[in-house]
């Protein structure tokens, strides 16, 4: 214990090294986005900021360059999709967990296991039938098509279920005596109590939605519906012209901003949602 100060040194060095490894590529992207095409194309990546930042970002955001649409459009698509997925997942999981815990109905256990089993069926596994359904419902190239198939969530349902199990039963009974029916209890007590859990899920699911690649790739055909992740990929693989790497870097930086914002804004609630046991 007396050696605490010294004993902390090595872990800190290791941590600093780790941060460096993770942060360096991000730094490189940031730097790359401030130079012009020629500087990057000559093969020697500079380590200090250049002077073309404003121009690069303006072009990336407004010009329909390599991806066919401006980054602003793609960011909007991504944001709408990720928000719809995160909020949709939370709404659906809250309701299904509520049903699982607080209502006795035939095949309740079956329903629980059915939800549980879908953990083993991510989009990649059920891609063909899901695509067929989306196509038949005319959902291709729509926001609904981007978000709906990803909304059902076993993880979130299970997380809410675990949380509801810790809510004391006496609270339900007190509500019943206070004249609150099932809907009132849900809205007045359960939802406010789930606030931190919802925040944690929102962060996780927003990132999940934002980072989707395969499904948006399949379900969108029009350039103006593509998400920023798809657009980014498209930019790096064009064949008939030179890849403007400074624009790609700028797009990458821009694509990173909304998730970073969400994480920072909800950090406190997020941590509390994951560790909180106090009731």
């Amino acid at each position, binding site marked *: 214990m007396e050696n605490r100060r010294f004993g902390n040194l090595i872990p800190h060095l290791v941590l600093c090294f780790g941060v460096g490894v993770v942060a360096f590529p991000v730094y490189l992207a940031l730097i790359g986005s401030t130079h012009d095409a020629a500087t990057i194309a000559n093969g020697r990546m500079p380590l200090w900021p250049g002077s073309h930042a404003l121009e690069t970002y303006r072009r990336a955001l407004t010009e329909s360059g390599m991806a066919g649409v401006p980054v602003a459009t793609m960011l909007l698509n991504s944001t709408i999709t990720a928000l719809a997925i995160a909020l949709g997942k939370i709404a659906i999981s809250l309701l299904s967990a509520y049903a699982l815990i607080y209502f006795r109905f035939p095949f309740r256990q079956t329903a629980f296991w059915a939800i549980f089993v879908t953990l083993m069926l991510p989009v990649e596994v059920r891609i063909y039938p899901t695509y067929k359904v989306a196509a038949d419902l005319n959902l291709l190239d729509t926001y609904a098509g981007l978000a709906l198939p990803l909304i059902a969530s076993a993880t979130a349902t299970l997380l809410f279920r675990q949380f509801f199990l810790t809510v*004391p039963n*006496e*609270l339900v*009974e*007190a509500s*019943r*005596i*206070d*004249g*609150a029916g099932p809907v*009132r209890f849900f809205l*007045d*007590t359960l939802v*406010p*109590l789930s*606030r931190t859990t919802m925040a944690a899920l929102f962060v996780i699911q927003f990132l999940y939605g934002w980072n989707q690649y395969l499904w948006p790739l399949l379900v969108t055909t029009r350039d103006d519906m593509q998400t920023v992740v798809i657009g980014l990929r498209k930019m790096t693989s064009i064949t008939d012209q030179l890849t403007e790497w400074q624009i790609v870097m700028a797009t990458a930086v821009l694509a990173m901003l909304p998730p970073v914002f969400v994480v920072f804004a909800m950090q406190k609630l997020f941590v509390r949602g994951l560790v909180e046991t*106090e*009731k």
Partner: protein
Amino acid sequence: MAGLALEQLRKTYAGGVEAVRGVSLDVPDGAFCVLVGPSGCGKSTVLRMIAGLETVTSGAITIGSRTVNEVEPADRDIAMVFQNYALYPHMRVYDNLAYGLRNRGTPRPEIETRVREAARMLGLETMLDRYPRQLSGGQRQRVAMGRAIVRKPQVFLFDEPLSNLDAKLRVQMRVEIRRLQRSLGVTTVYVTHDQVEAMTMADRLVVMNGGRIEQVGTPIEIYRRPATRYVATFMGSPPMNILPAEVVPGGVRIEDATIPVATPGLAPGAAVEAGIRPEDLRLAPEGLAFGVAFVEELGATRLLHGRLGGAELVVQVPAGPEPAEGAAIRLAVAPGALHLFDPGTGQRLGMPG
């Protein structure tokens, strides 16, 4: 205001467990009725059936003149205080008190008046803006009671409300609950496993065991004239001593001593069980032979533990140096303090006392 009546109340759980096996009880208007018994005796189940939180297997629950078996808890005109208080953690004290009234569509000014009134009665006026987590155990307890009071119900139900408090606070809240109930005059059913709480608070004490009522009466009736051996040993601390005895002409014989007691209807030679409270035994020049194995000092009194023949015995004597551990003494029974029970059924025998 209204009384409460239970008639042949039964509860059988889905698994076939019989938690309550025919409980009939009348609680007069304004009475403070305490259900006491060991855990698993069905007392909480009875309370929860009155509240409407458990379904009734058979029998009837009547509040005032209305049978409420099928009525929703919210419409039974009852209010309940839970063991863990069950305050809404995300609501301020004010909203905790007002919630039930709001759900009933009580007009705002009326809610305001009632909440302020309850807060004043319970000394919570300065805490209305706090959250439950910012309150101490005793204050939370008060908020839970406030939530019951604002509703102005016909019946209060308490489910072991003091068991989460420390000993000192418990004594204080005991008095407070009793005072509050008297001033409001609301019929109350109070469940506890603590026999001191039961003795001190009840107008009407109900001792339960194994899903049945063993005895109903005032605390003094139950203490002085326990109807069964079970009640005799459950109520009172330290518990009543039970000794094997034999009926002889003019009394009963315990070991080698004969104690004069009326034994109407008992044939000489019959085996009985004799119950003697520890405080009804005193040192005497002759009587029951008793070896003091060890002594518990309680300050005002001392408890002598030891054996009398084959049975364990506890004697309560005034403080003083004598007798010491290891002493061989003789004990006399205070006149009229002997209770006789049937060794088979545990029922009280005869009319002694």
